[in-house]
Structures are given as structure tokens and as C-alpha cells.
């Protein structure tokens, strides 16, 4: 692997929608690309979404196309369970250390699933943010790429580990696998490391840490997904009852100097979308508590559509706090509708926090010449050899991430072209 990477090669860090887009667009221009993903499979956060706004289409649909592009492209190599440890050097000549964590399953895996059947231990399913459980030998999800099982480190030294090994007819389970540190050369680096949800428990008035029935918008996506822990039913965590009266609280962490200074852009649209998951369930109601509904450009059409939905109501208010009715498990939202000053104490059986975005932490200090903004989003490196793409560069929705990633791909190609033409190459 290391051999194919040269100062003509582009490194893309992060295998979410932005990283895949950047890598594919560059590779389909005939460039050598290595895509490095920290998790067990590609797709990132979009693979954990049920649907996209405003078309209500399915993220895995675009993922399928991208995976097919990837399988068909020989310029592109993918490393999963791979984490960047350090980046040194300069434009056209970066040295990158990459840590490869063991999957304990080698390329012989046929994804037949025998190991999962043999193993008894269950672990919280990372794909469902731990809302459901999964066997400790597992396929990350039905669209996982690479299509290969993973064995959770927790069972390696146990009988279960042995069971998995025995169950595999193809000698694909390798409990001896060790962590590796590889070093590669790259001409340019694209950071597509994406975002992570703001820690909801820090938003104390909403009691995410105290009340089972207060969840985040990304957890709600898993509830709505037929592949998710509830098979697509909107069941509230406290007692598994179906949630019929759901509150969506905007700016959960965003636009708040006690938390995130910036607006995370996607949350309004995400809640509008999720209100439609609710309306599809028959009589269920949604209430959206907001400061400003930020439905930019043609998303306005979708906002209008939701406004016309009799099952959805809007309240211009930042909810002040949430209290629990211990008898019914209902949540009591207190606040004031600032359009004309109307006080409310509203009961809901489930509260979804439209949680804000912050840049995903890399676990390593960024190369010092990379410029970031006040919220830590990445603008790129001074030497024009490294670039931020997608949500790593700014709070962006999917189409703007794809746009940003495509732009980053060109900049990376350009910086390689500059270097090599400076060396009299190309």
C-alpha cells in the first residue's frame, strides 16, 4: 500500500459523504487517491441518517452510487480503521503516519455471517449510537463498505473470540491481528473529517442527562430508520410507548455563547424533515420551537410544505427549560412565544433536540500552518497543500458538503500540478 503513495498522491482523511466525494472526484480525474477512514466502514454520518431533506430520499441511495464508483475505480484505495497520527513536511511532500487498528477479520471474509451467529456477547450498536445492541462479531450495517465483518476487541481474548474463529470456514477471523503504524508520502491532503454532535448533556435546562425521553436529532434518525433499533417505530426510550406528540427544539447548542457561537445550518431543515417522519405515522403531532427558521434557497419550498401540514405547529421561542412529570413520563416545556408574548407550559411525550454541529476532533494536533475559525472549522493550510472539505470546513448540509468536497478535490489536484510543474514535471 505504502508503495503506491507518492508525492503525486492525494490523501483524503475521512470517509463520509465529503471524503468519498472528494476522493472519487479526484480519482475520476485520473489522480491517485488514498482515502483513510477511522471507522470500520465508509459513509460517515450520512449513512446513519434515515432520509435527506428536502426530497425525503434515502442517503444510502447516493451511497450505493458512490460505492459502485469506488469499486470500479482503480485509482482509489481505501483504508478503514485507519487514523492519522501525524502530518509533517510541506506541499508536494507530506509525510503522514497512519495507525491501522485491527479488525480481526481479514480480506478472506465473505460476509456470510457465521461468526455473528456463533458469538454470544452483545455490544451497544455503534451504528445506532448505542440505542440498540448488536453481536460482538458484526457487519457495521447493511450497506457497509468494505463488506466485511468486524470483531469487537472486547471478545478477542475470550471464548467468544474462539467461537468466532471456529465458526469461520474461510480462515477470515484472525485474533492475532495487531495494530500497525504505516508511513506514507503524499502530495496534498484533504481533511474531510466531518462533524460531531455537540454534547447535549451540557445543555442543562433540557435535561438530556436526566430525562430518558429527551433525545438528540441524530438519535431520532435511528429511531425512524427501518434498519434502526426500533425497526422504524418512533418509540420513546423511557417505556417503549409510541411517541405521538413530539417537540423539536431548535438551536440546541447552536447560536448560543454558552455553547456553540455559530449556527449549525442543518438543524432547522433536519427538524422540518423529522416532523414529516412523525406526520407519516398517522395522527402524531410535531411542534417546532425555533428562533429563526433557516430554510435557505429552495429549501423554502419544503418549509412552506411543512407549514401547510396540519399536524405540525411552530412556536417562535427558545424553550426555557424542561421538567419531567414523573407519573406520566411526559415532559413539560416552559417558555414564551415571543410573537406577541404568549406564555406556554406544553406537554410532550418525546423531545428531540436539534443538536448543533462541532468539528470532529482528530485526536491529534492539527499541522500548525492550518487556519481554523473561531469555532475550530478548518479553512486550509497556508502553503495551499492541505484543504478542509465539507463539514470539517464549515457547518454544511449534504449538497454544500459535496460542493465543498468537489472544490477541495480540484485544489488538491491543482497543488500537485503546481508542485510537479515547478519541478518541470506534468
Amino acid at each position, binding site marked *: 500500500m505504502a508503495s503506491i503513495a507518492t508525492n503525486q498522491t492525494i490523501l483524503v482523511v475521512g470517509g463520509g459523504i465529503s471524503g468519498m466525494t472528494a476522493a472519487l472526484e479526484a480519482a475520476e480525474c485520473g489522480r491517485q487517491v488514498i482515502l483513510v477512514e477511522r471507522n470500520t466502514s465508509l459513509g460517515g454520518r450520512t449513512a446513519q441518517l434515515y432520509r435527506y431533506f428536502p426530497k425525503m430520499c434515502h442517503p444510502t441511495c447516493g451511497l450505493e452510487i458512490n460505492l459502485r464508483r469506488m469499486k470500479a475505480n482503480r485509482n482509489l484505495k481505501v483504508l478503514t480503521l485507519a487514523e492519522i497520527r501525524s502530518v509533517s513536511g510541506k506541499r508536494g511532500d507530506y509525510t503522514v503516519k497512519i495507525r491501522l487498528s485491527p479488525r480481526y477479520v481479514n480480506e478472506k471474509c465473505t460476509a456470510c455471517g457465521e461468526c455473528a451467529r456463533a458469538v454470544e456477547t452483545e455490544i451497544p450498536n455503534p451504528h445506532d449510537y448505542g440505542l440498540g445492541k448488536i453481536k460482538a462479531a458484526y457487519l457495521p450495517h447493511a450497506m457497509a463498505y468494505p463488506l466485511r465483518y468486524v470483531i469487537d476487541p472486547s471478545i478477542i481474548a475470550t471464548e467468544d473470540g474462539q467461537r468466532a474463529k471456529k465458526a469461520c470456514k474461510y480462515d477470515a477471523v484472525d485474533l492475532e491481528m495487531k495494530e500497525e503504524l504505516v508511513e506514507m508520502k503524499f502530495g496534498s491532503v484533504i481533511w474531510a473529517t466531518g462533524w460531531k454532535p455537540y454534547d447535549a448533556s451540557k445543555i442543562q435546562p433540557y435535561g438530556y442527562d436526566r430525562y430518558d425521553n429527551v433525545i438528540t436529532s441524530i438519535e431520532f434518525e435511528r429511531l425512524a430508520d427501518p434498519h434502526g433499533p426500533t425497526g422504524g417505530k418512533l418509540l420513546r426510550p423511557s417505556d417503549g410507548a409510541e411517541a405521538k406528540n413530539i417537540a423539536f427544539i431548535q438551536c440546541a447548542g447552536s447560536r448560543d455563547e454558552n455553547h456553540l457561537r455559530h449556527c449549525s445550518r442543518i438543524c432547522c431543515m433536519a427538524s422540518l424533515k423529522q416532523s414529516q417522519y412523525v406526520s407519516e405515522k398517522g395522527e402524531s403531532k410535531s411542534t417546532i420551537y425555533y428562533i429563526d427558521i433557516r430554510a435557505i434557497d429552495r429549501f423554502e419550498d419544503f418549509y412552506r410544505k411543512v407549514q401547510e401540514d396540519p399536524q405540525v405547529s411552530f412556536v417562535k421561542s*427558545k424553550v*426555557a427549560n424542561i421538567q419531567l412529570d414523573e407519573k406520566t413520563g411526559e415532559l413539560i416545556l416552559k*417558555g414564551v412565544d415571543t410573537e406577541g408574548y404568549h*406564555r406556554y407550559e406544553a406537554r410532550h411525550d418525546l423531545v428531540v433536540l436539534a443538536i448543533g454541529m462541532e468539528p470532529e476532533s482528530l485526536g491529534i494536533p492539527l499541522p500548525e500552518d492550518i487556519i481554523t475559525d473561531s469555532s475550530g472549522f478548518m479553512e486550509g493550510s497556508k502553503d495551499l497543500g492541505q484543504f478542509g472539505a465539507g463539514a470539517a470546513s464549515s457547518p454544511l448540509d449534504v449538497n454544500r458538503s459535496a460542493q465543498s468536497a468537489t472544490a477541495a478535490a480540484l485544489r488538491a489536484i491543482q497543488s500537485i500540478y503546481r508542485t510537479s510543474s515547478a519541478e518541470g514535471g506534468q
Partner: protein
Amino acid sequence: MSYRNDFLKEVEENVEEGEWVKMCMQCGVCAGSCPFGPHWEHSPQKIFMMIRAGERIQVLSSDSMWMCTSCYNCIVRCPRKLPITHIMHGLANYAHRLGLAPKGQPTRVFAKTFWDNLVKTGRVNELKLTLSHYFRDGFIQGIRNALAMKDIGLGMMKARRINPMELFGGHGLQDLEGFHAIVAKAREIEDRKKGLKNG
């Protein structure tokens, strides 16, 4: 003529923390967080909007700010970190000093009584404070108020938490002149700044 900035500027110059008023983004978290919220004619966030809209008299003659219990919920929840409690105090003080605050507003009256009581000896004399508060509306009403609360009074006395002797003296500062000089000077500087006549 609305949305001229005259009143906003007046507030920024004369009201404690007044320069924060323009930073409000009308989310309403303060209004929803106030324990006495239901008793406010205008919520804090609405008052900020009224100030921007130039509704001077409506704001300064309102008894809303006088409902502030100083619980500080609004301050810790405000996403723009406005020191709302202090702005409310500042507005109340400004309205009071301009003589625009509602006459006989109980908290306004009590606050005045408290301050006078404080300044007199340098420390608050709770019994005198209580009595003068009860007798604010004259002797008869005072007796009523006092009787209404007599159980509490007696209870407190039994618990040795009210001292009848305080009526004749009680706690006080040794350097009372020094204290008075400081208060007078501070008041003089503040009034000069805010262009208020000493009163």
C-alpha cells in the same frame, strides 16, 4: 415615530448594563425562565424590543422590572450572555429616579424603605424594616398587616430571631459618618454621570 434610536441611546448611557440591550435576538428564554414571569406585563426580551422601538414611557412606567426576584435564571440561560437581571435592576432604578416608576409599587416602596434603613445605621435592622414596611400605607393598614403576620412575628420572636429591643437602637456601625460620607459621595458621582438631580 418608532425605531428611532434616541431611547436606546438614553438607556445605553444611563442604565446599568444598558449597552447590552441591542444584543438581544428575541429568543425569549429570559421570559420563559422568570419565576414571576406570569406577573410581568412585558417580558424582559419584549422590554428590550420596546426600548429599540422607542417606547420610552411604556417601558419606564411599567411595573414589570419591579417583578424581578434576582433569581438570575435569565442571565445563566441567555444565549447572548446579556446580564438581564442587572438591566432590569438598572431600568427600575432609572425609572424610580426619574419619578416615572409606578406610584406605590410595593417592591419600589419596600426597596426605598430598605435603603433608608440600611443607610441609617449601615446595617439592616430587620424589625424596623418589617414594621416600616407594614406601616407604609398608614397606621390602620399597618396594624392590619402586622396582625396578619403576627403569628410569624411571634414565632420568630420565640425562636429569638426577632429582637423587640431593636426598636431602641440595635446593631450599627462605629464609623457611621465615614459610611455616610462614602454613600453620599458615590451618589453624587452617579447622579452627575446620569444627569439626575440629587433627590
